[in-house]
């Protein structure tokens, strides 16, 4: 029987590991999975690979492949702090194969809210 709930680990921007549960039967992507778990992932573009607010580093390449889609690659080309293991997690579908995956949230663009001088 396929698993309806899987567990993965997200390392937040403070470096803390958070274990989260994700449903596999709701047709969600990992950006949405982070949001339903109240992790600080904005998902500004709703998951269209247009904003990079869901940028993560993949620590388990055996579970989440590092191959990027064309739109995803093009968006990452215009993004800061990109590493070889960067992915936009809205482009990663939640399936039972993701069980045990570890991802780390990349820094926010421009260092977050405080950085602006109004």
């Amino acid at each position, binding site marked *: 029987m396929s698993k309806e709930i899987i567990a993965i680990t997200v390392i937040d921007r403070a470096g803390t590991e958070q274990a989260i549960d994700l449903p596999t039967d709701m047709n969600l992507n990992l950006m949405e999975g982070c949001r339903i778990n109240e992790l600080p992932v904005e998902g*500004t*573009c709703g998951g*269209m690979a*247009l*904003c*990079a*607010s869901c940028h993560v580093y993949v620590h388990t390449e055996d579970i989440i492949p590092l191959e990027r889609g*064309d*739109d995803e*690659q*093009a*968006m990452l*080309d*215009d*993004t*800061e*702090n990109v590493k070889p293991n960067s992915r936009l997690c809205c482009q990663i579908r939640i399936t039972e194969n993701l069980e045990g995956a570890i991802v780390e949230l990349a820094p926010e*663009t*421009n260092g977050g*809210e405080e950085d*602006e001088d*109004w």
Partner: protein
Amino acid sequence: MITTDIIIIGAGPVGLFTVFEAGLLKMRCHLIDALPIPGGQCAEIYPKKPIYDIPGYPEILAGELVDNLMKQIEPFKPGFTLGEPAVSLDKTDDDQFIVTTKQGTQHKAPIVAIAGGLGVFVPRRPSIDNLRDFEEKGVNYFIKDPEPYRNKKVVISGGGDSALDWAIFMAEDFASDVTLIHRSQSFRAHPDSVQKAFDLAEAGKLKMFLHSEVHKLSGNGSLDAVTVKQKEKEDFQIETKHWLPLFGLTPKLGPIAKWGLELEKNAIVVNNALDYSTNIPGVFAVGDINTYPGKLKLILCGFHEATIMVQHAFKKIYPDKRNVLKYTTVNGVNGFE
């Protein structure tokens, strides 16, 4: 000082439609937006993507929706302060508000409608140590008016629509020398624009460096040169007084957070049972910027909120006037002279 009936902060779809609904009640509006163009997220993030849930339109491009809204509000002759973020909101002794932008433009009205969406769009800045030293001194993230670049030597970075559109515009006999620098070889811009840029490069009108990025800036007080890092090649310098890093924009709630409004998770708490008023009497919030139980961040919902909100704004401005709802079918749209 600009005076009006309703100051609308944010010229996204919801701010624009607010002008229409206010106009039907004979209230004048002035829109303020940090972006140099109207349209908010629709214009900045996805102008060329189709939307399928605007009632009556099985499919419409986000950019077209903005054009249509601009046409729809035209009779009401709204004022615009574009390219300027609103940074402060102050109450006056005569029960009005003054909204001031970062550039110092002041606006006065009895009603303020905040339609700020996800917040002010700010540039996605590349990580270069002394970048801030050159902002507005050779480094610019917005092009409000291309005139300062006429017959100049310009370097543009980025691979999206705005980087390509501007590179093409400037390369077509506008600037004297145009270089486009991009981190890879594929672009996230419209395929027609990409083709055009390559054609211009072929024709020798646009210099293009792929797999490259600007990583150092130099100058004495203002920009004199950029240093470019190229994959598997030596760094090189381009002398230029103008570098335009166009990596797109990202929204930040920004100044609104400090105005004494009740907030919840970066959104303004409003009274959805009545009129979308905030905790400051006379200040309303509509569209993506507000929150209440069951809130949905959709254009359709913002339009509804704006329609209800202006009825209450009318009562606040004209406490003694009586008003009844009139269909546009019956009365048409009577704009301002």
